[in-house]
């Protein structure tokens, strides 16, 4: 990285912790980047001439007489079309052996879009997965995470969604990605011939965890370039935001901040919101859609990380293993897309909202019937039929291994209604029953 002539070099560090150093320095800007013993640091506190820096790679082996050079700038990224097809680390340096990117220098973590300059998200994103398209339709400009236990195949599902989404650019922000998963993403994108539409910023498990903190801002700065300046439809994938939040807590704990719930910093909500709110639909057609992953601990969504995420995002997609059918499904009860109202029944077939609700209601009846069964009570004929319906519905519609269009999804659901229920039991508006119950 850059050091220039005439830059002042400091060589006297007064305090060191695992993640921070302190030294006396002047003319330093808040948030400014620095090179400390060849590692990247950022100013997090200034008191008179005492400056505290957070060292992304950790402070192991940094001596008190290490060289410290301030770079006079916040974190930045060079943006241009040359980003496409490339892989970078958390600092925006290429890790694919390719050349440096030429382009306009932009500060990352920049200001937010004026709310009055936004447009309402409006365009359906088809993923081929009915658990999403039918029950929790996504819209451009939306921000939504997968909630999943660490053993769920969330990265695979996300890669599929990304490739089918018809995005002009896909930007991958990988945080604490295992090397295998990193190579997996690289392979699928390559095999799909999509590599030239993809930009990746990756921090793997082999990199220092605190570096992850820079990944979302890097990915979203690139996204803003393509979405705003190039008016493209950009899809940003952030995986795994739980590891990002863990890195936040590492830093805040080392800076002696008072933790709030689950030893997370009190600012967790604002820190996450700053990232997710970069999702936007511009009036000119460009958009940033954010699909993220928040891994859960044993399905616990009351933990501070999923809880704060749920308060910020526009719904969540809950992945769960359905042991009755042995498939991973998008759980219709705990999942929600808050923007689906904007597109279902208008950009999809008219019967979509009614069919969706009716199927989920019947699926809920099946859950009640199963509870009854587990408690040793007799099942009615209706109970038996709902249980059969639930199994077929899970395999034919909820499973994540699907790739069909919404018309097919709706037709399949009607077929399941017909196979298992009478018209009255389904409760869908009469005009739709007349038209589609064939």
């Amino acid at each position: 990285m850059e050091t220039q002539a005439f830059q002042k070099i400091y060589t006297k560090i007064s305090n060191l912790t695992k993640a921070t150093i302190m030294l006396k320095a002047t003319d330093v800007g808040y948030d400014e980047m620095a090179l400390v013993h060849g590692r990247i640091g950022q100013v997090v506190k200034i008191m008179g001439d005492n400056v505290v820096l957070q060292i992304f790679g950790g402070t192991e082996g940094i001596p008190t007489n290490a060289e410290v050079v301030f770079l006079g700038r916040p974190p930045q990224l060079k943006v241009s079309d040359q980003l496409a097809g490339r892989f970078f680390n958390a600092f925006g340096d290429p890790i694919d052996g390719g050349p440096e990117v030429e382009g306009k220098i932009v500060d990352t973590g920049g200001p937010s879009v004026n709310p009055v300059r936004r447009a309402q998200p409006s365009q359906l994103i088809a993923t081929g997965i009915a658990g999403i398209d039918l029950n929790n339709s996504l819209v451009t400009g939306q921000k939504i995470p997968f909630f999943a236990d660490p053993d769920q195949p969330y990265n695979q599902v996300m890669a599929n969604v990304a490739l089918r989404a018809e995005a002009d650019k896909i930007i991958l922000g990988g945080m604490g990605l295992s090397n295998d998963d990193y190579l997996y993403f690289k392979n699928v994108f390559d095999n799909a011939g999509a590599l030239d539409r993809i930009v990746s910023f990756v921090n793997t498990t082999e990199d220092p965890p605190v570096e992850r903190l820079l990944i979302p801002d890097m990915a979203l700065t690139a996204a803003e370039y393509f979405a705003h300046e190039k008016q493209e439809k950009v899809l940003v994938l952030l995986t795994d935001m739980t590891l990002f939040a863990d890195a936040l807590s590492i830093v805040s704990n080392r800076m002696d901040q008072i933790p709030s719930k689950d030893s997370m910093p009190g600012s967790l909500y604002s820190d996450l919101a700053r990232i997710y709110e970069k999702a936007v639909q511009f009036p000119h057609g460009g958009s940033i859609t954010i699909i993220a992953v928040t891994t859960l601990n044993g399905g616990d969504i009351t933990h501070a990380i999923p809880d704060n995420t749920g308060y910020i995002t526009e719904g969540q997609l809950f992945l769960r293993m359905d042991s009755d059918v042995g498939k991973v499904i998008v759980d219709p009860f705990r999942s929600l897309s808050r923007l689906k109202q904007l597109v279902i029944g208008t950009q999809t077939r008219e019967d979509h909202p009614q069919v969706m609700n009716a199927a989920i209601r019947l699926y809920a009846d099946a859950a009640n019937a199963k509870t009854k069964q587990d408690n040793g009570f007799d099942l009615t004929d209706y109970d038996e039929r709902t249980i059969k319906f639930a199994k077929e519905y899970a395999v034919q519609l909820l499973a994540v291994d699907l790739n069909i269009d919404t018309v097919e999804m709706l037709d399949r659901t009607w077929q399941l209604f017909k196979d298992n229920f009478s018209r009255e039991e389904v409760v869908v508006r009469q005009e739709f029953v007349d038209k589609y119950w064939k």
Partner: protein
Amino acid sequence: MERKNKTTGTVAGIIANLVIVKVDGPVAQNEIGFIYHPENKLMAEVIKITGDNVFVQVFESTRGLKIGAKVEFENHLLEVTLGPGILSRNYDGLQNDLDKMEGVFLKRGDYTDPLDREKKWDWTPIAKKGDKVSAGSWLGEVPENGNPHRIMVPFKMEGVYTVKNIVEAGSYIVDDVIATVSDAEGNDIQLTMVQKWPVKVAIKAYDNKPRPFKLLETGIRTMDTLNPIVEGGTGFIPGPFGTGKTVLQHAISKYAEADIVIIAACGERANEVVEIFTEFPELEDPRTGRKLIERTIIIANTSNMPVAAREASVYTAMTLGEYYRSMGLKVLLMADSTSRWAQALREMSNRLEELPGPDAFPMDLTAIISSFYARAGFVYLNNGESGSITFIGTVSPAGGNLKEPVTESTRKAARCFYGLNQDRADSKRYPAIDPIDSYSKYLEYPEVQSYLLERIGEGWLDKVAKTKTLLLRGREAMEQINILGDDGVPMEFHERFWNSELIDAVILQQDSFDDVDANCPMPRQKYMLEKVLDITDKKFTFETFEDLSGFFKRIINHLKQMNYAEWDSDKFRNYEAELEDMMKERLN
């Protein structure tokens, strides 16, 4: 806070948006200062003073700020600008007009004028030469989107004044002098249509604040019928994420019988504000026929905007509300979400290294929330007219657990509790307000009781009480059925359960996305409640519990169709007639 010269200082420390300034003169708590940054001035507010070290919270990002930067203090607290032309504007938390900002991205240090200085207003004088006036007295009025916007003696003016001159009816801009008044010593003071007021101080230019007593119709059945809020009342809506706080507030802001609606989007999603920008200009106010946006003011401090301005945003909203209340108008104020404001306080308190209270919130959280809610209320003005601010805030409890500091503090301050229930939301029983845990303390006020009886009808309160009892008994019956099984309980239990299901489906549940059902005026609420209670009184006979549930499902379906049909339309009457037939069959 009068000073000859502005106090200045230099930046001595920076921790995120907390900046320590060394000053050369006097400063006041909560005084506003500007930090000079190479390209722009950053606004900040004093939050703590120790010796000549002044701690300020900066309303902007402090990126790039350096030690030694110059700071200038303004001799005043954080203020809003009051005058005609505030309605239908989109402000940020500091009352900057968002539409006047250039560019797609918000620029640091971009402060825009909240008022239109060129627009001409149709002025009609109210006060006459020689009148004795004081702070808040109406001097004249201009029409603003169908409401009379009263131009008042500035709230900052103390004592009694005599009107020396007042301009004739005509067309004026806000900065024109519209009146000259003189004080006891004979000094003349010229007044325009514009005044300023510090947001953290309540406007008290009224005669008295009685207990509120008038129903404020919201059009939401489960609120108006079961737990009504009143004009000048306070309420809060706690609920886990995704349970419908925002949808409910938007619904209330569309249909409530208020003259002015102020929506403070406090640390929530920008897309939700965009929804209001997009929908409200299209939707009609059912009472006036004007577009909803005309009576609405939006204060948007979305979650990605500077955290310190989040706290300011709710105060800005409240102060604008107090201004319109002083004009004798009915103001409805909504804040979504007050938890984000509390979190902003927490972030700052932690940076100040204050001794933390529960969950690291500041110790005085309860006091802060209480004194904010106390600014709402119904008032009689000095001229005998009345005005009100009804305040409803949402609370976003961490982990959905209502035993957390913000919910508990708010419970002490607000008189209505509309608790959203996760199970109800999961089963799409919207609005997910829990009918049993929720309450309105106003129902216990004798003055509210007599108002309701007069406005809605004899016996109304008994019907409400009966409805609540039936819901409770239904819940108990359901618990028994779950334990003992369908066959393990007497038929009576199924009956109780289905009576409560009937009330739930027809009265409690309401579809905010349906054009008709979204708004249910009081006469219709009364009609439907009586209809439903009537059914619960009937003695039907059933062979089996499945027979019973089948029957109830069918009548619920019909009653729901009635909810979806235009009030008193043929469709409505047809469903009703069919319903009567269905019931007759069962009674014989």
